[in-house]
Each structure stands twice: as C-alpha cells, then as structure tokens.
C-alpha cells in the first residue's frame, strides 16, 4: 500500500510538469500547425543554461529563471520568425525536417560546450523531503507540481480573458478570419512560439533539481511531450494536463512494480493502447 501511494504521489507531481511541457507544444501546434521536434532539446538547453549559471555565479536553478526565461523566450521568437515562419503553411514535412535539424544543432551545441558526461545541478531544496505518513515526497517535486498547475491555470485565464489570448484562439480556429479582424497572424504565431519556449525554461528548472542531465536527453522529453499532446487531443487544455498525469503515473508505477528499464516502457505501452481505442485523444469533445 505504501508503495502504491508513493508511486501515486510521485506520478502526479511529475506528471503535472509533463502536462506543462505539453501545453507549450499544444499551443504552438494549435496556432501554426508546427510540431516541434526540437521541443525536448530546448528543455535541455534550459537545464544546461541553469547549470552554466550555477557554475559561473552559483545561482540556484530557481533563481536562474530570472535569466533563462527571458533569454529562451527571445530565442524562441527569433527561431520562429527567421526559421519557421518562411516554411509554415507550405510543406508540413519540411517544417518537421527543420525542427529535427534544429534538435541536432542544439544537442551537439550543448555537447560541444558541456561535454557528454552526466552532470547534476545542485539546488538548496534538492535533498529536502516531506514525510506524510508512509509517503515520502521530494520538495522539488512539490514545487514542480504547484508551479505547473499555477502556470496551467494562468495560461487558461490568459487564453480566456485577454485580447492576446483571444487572438491566439482566433488564429487557431480560423486564421483567415483572424486576419480579416486585423490580427497579425504571423505575429501571434511568433509570440505563441516564444511563449511556448519560455514555458520550457520554467519547466526545465522545475525538473532539474536532483536529476542528472546529459546532452542526448532531449529526444526523450520530445517523445514524452508528443505523446502527452496526442493523448490530450492535440489542443485540448484539460486533456493535455490529464495526459501529463497519465504518463507521469504510468512512469512511476512502472518503475516501482516492474523493473527500471521495463518501467520506462510502460508509458509508451499505455499510449499505444489508448490510441488504439481513442485515436481522438482522451477528452470527449474537441473543445478549443
């Protein structure tokens, strides 16, 4: 029973951050139809930036956010404006190729600067634990959970009740009509991509404490994000957060009840099963 609760806690806490990763990808897909295969490598980039800031200035990853969030947001905006924008709407495969190429560039750039060995970035809360009855939770996981849900709720409110949020939804629902309202579609797509990458900078810091990082890890995060987005029905906000929790939970239960390696397979197995029976994703309507 203790094991069960332990896995439940860990799965929910980590799953919420997977949900946050996927929200960024879902938003970008929604407004520009871009599936970004370098998503995970941007997470890597965020993590290694935190490492660099720790090495140079002894900054805690949570403090590094002051630097990494604006930096990565701007980088995201530049990448969309100069690399993706000329391609969007022409050839879907070309866009995919481009983001795959970007993934290799990021991965090898990180390898060049930081080397290939696995490293850790210390944080003040890294080894802090909360003990609730039989369940032990790591404080960084609790922080990740709280911040992820707060961000998800904040994004939801932004999309619902600000002009910028409404323009994002308008471009998603009908880009032609949005342009006729005087919305600059390219600008909205660029800002959304920038926002998506900025969110990754936050997610990177949330996942970092206690986790060893290496340059080649990006693909794993990309795949996890992709399956969470697909589970959530691509653009459904609640569905994506739910998908994140399912993947987080299956990872946690897999590692506890199966072996370490087999456990890492469980999320993908569950994904295939769900897609076989509900190819439209978990949620009922395609509400956007």
């Amino acid at each position, binding site marked *: 029973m203790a094991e069960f609760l332990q896995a439940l806690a860990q799965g929910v806490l980590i799953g919420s951050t997977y949900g946050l990763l996927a929200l960024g990808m879902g938003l970008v897909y929604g407004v520009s139809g871009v599936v970004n295969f370098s998503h995970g490598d941007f997470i890597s980039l965020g993590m290694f930036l935190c490492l660099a800031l720790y090495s140079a200035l002894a900054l805690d990853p949570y403090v590094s956010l002051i630097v990494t969030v604006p930096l990565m947001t701007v980088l995201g905006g530049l990448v969309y404006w100069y690399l993706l924008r000329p391609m969007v709407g022409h050839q879907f495969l070309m866009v995919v190729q481009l983001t795959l190429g970007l993934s290799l560039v990021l991965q090898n750039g990180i390898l060049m600067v930081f080397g290939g060995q696995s490293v850790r970035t210390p944080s003040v809360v890294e080894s802090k634990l909360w003990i609730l009855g039989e369940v032990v939770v790591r404080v960084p996981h609790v922080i990740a959970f709280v911040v992820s849900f707060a961000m998800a709720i904040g994004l939801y409110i932004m999309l619902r009740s600000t*002009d910028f949020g*409404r*323009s994002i*939804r*308008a471009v998603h*629902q*009908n880009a*032609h*009509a*949005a*342009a*006729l*309202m*005087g*919305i*600059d579609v390219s600008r909205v797509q660029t800002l959304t991509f920038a926002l998506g990458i900025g969110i990754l900078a936050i997610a990177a810091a949330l996942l970092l404490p206690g986790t060893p990082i290496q340059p080649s890890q990006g693909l794993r995060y990309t795949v996890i994000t992709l399956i969470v987005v697909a589970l959530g029905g691509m653009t459904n906000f609640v569905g994506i957060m739910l998908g994140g929790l399912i993947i987080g939970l299956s990872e946690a239960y897999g590692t506890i009840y199966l072996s370490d390696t087999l456990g890492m397979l469980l999320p993908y197995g569950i994904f295939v099963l769900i897609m076989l029976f509900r190819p439209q994703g978990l949620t009922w309507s395609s*509400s*956007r």
Partner: protein
Amino acid sequence: MLEVEHLVTGYGGVPVLHDVSLRLGAGELVGLLGANNAGKTTLINSLSGVVPPMSGRIRFEGQDVTAMTPKQRVEIGIIQVPEGRLVFPEMSVRENLLLGGINARARAHRPRQMEHVLELFPRLRERLGQKAGTLSGGEQQMLAIGRALMAEARLLMLDEPSLGLSPLFVQYIFGIIDRLHAEGLSILLIEQNLNLTLRHAQRCYVLERGKVAIEGASDVVKDDPRTRRAYLGL
C-alpha cells in the same frame, strides 16, 4: 471613397482578375455581381489585402493602400464580412464581437460599439454566452455583420451574405443592409442573388471571367441583356 484602378490579382502568378477598375462613393451601396468563379471573392480579398495584387492600384479616401497589410487596412476601416461567415465556432458570441473590435482604432470603443450592435441584432443579445458554432446560419450571419461593425467599418464589404439562408433571413439581412446604408455607411455588396442585389444597390458591376463586363445604375444593368448572359456564364 474607394477607387480601384487596373487591378490584376491572382494566385501563384496566374491572374484571376484582369484589369479591374471600380469606384465607390462615400455612403454608396454598390453591388458586385457575377457567376461562380467570376473573381468576386478574389477581388474582395485583394481589397482586404489578404491576396496581394500583381499590378494596379487601390485607393481609399485618397490614400494609396495597395501596399498595406490586412491589419493596416482594418485599422483604416476597410472591413470584410467573409463568404461563409467564418465566425469563430468555439468562442462565445460575446468573444466573437470583442475580436471584431480588436484593432487599434476600435479597441477603446468596444463597450459602446457592442451596445450599438446588440441593439441592431437583439437576437445576439439573447445568445451572448452561447458558442458561435451552435448558432443557426442566419444568426451566424448577424454575428459576422455585428463583428464587422465592432471593427468600426467605414467601408463594409459583404461577401454573399444571403448564401445558404432561408428566405425569411435573407429578407431580414437585406433589411439590415438597407438600414446601415441609410445610416450613411459605404457598402460593397457581393452577391450571386441577381434580383435582390439589383433591388437594393444603387449601382452595380458585373464581373465576368475576371473582367468588369457591365457597370452602371441598377436599373440600367437590370435591363441590359448581357447581364443575364454573364450570369449564366454563357
């Protein structure tokens, strides 16, 4: 108010409109007729700036707008109600109207303008919180026009507002168009419905295969035997 001179527009280097010229005076209601594929929607889209012109010139209130982006054109008041209405289906009626007034010029006046639109279309007031996708075709057309009025249109361009509506709704929508015209709004009305347009518009242009075939006062166009021929695409 609007002057189009020798406009050539097309897609991928292939012209659809060949040397189209037309004028619309302030406060005028002008009809643009033509069969399917005559180039009506292409013309309205190049007036909105979403299809770039290959050559020719578009002037609005004396200002050359040929090179302006769609956004800039909305900001000076050139507003299109697109064919098929294209409301944002997953957003409420209220959100659709707010989006209509999102441009820099109209944004600050949205509460006042919304009140005006809801007076014009009481039906929309009853449906404010409802998703636009669940409205009937006629209600969606009201919403599409309301959304354009939220943008504080100076030139309202309507693309096939009667398309797919029941006769009762067509009557209603044309009543609204007459009322807006009477209030002094300049309107370019694109229609397939020949008789209806000739009855409501002061002047008409008939497009045929991307060229202006006939133009003049509605009575004249009505009696021109070429009109029906152009219409049947003969």
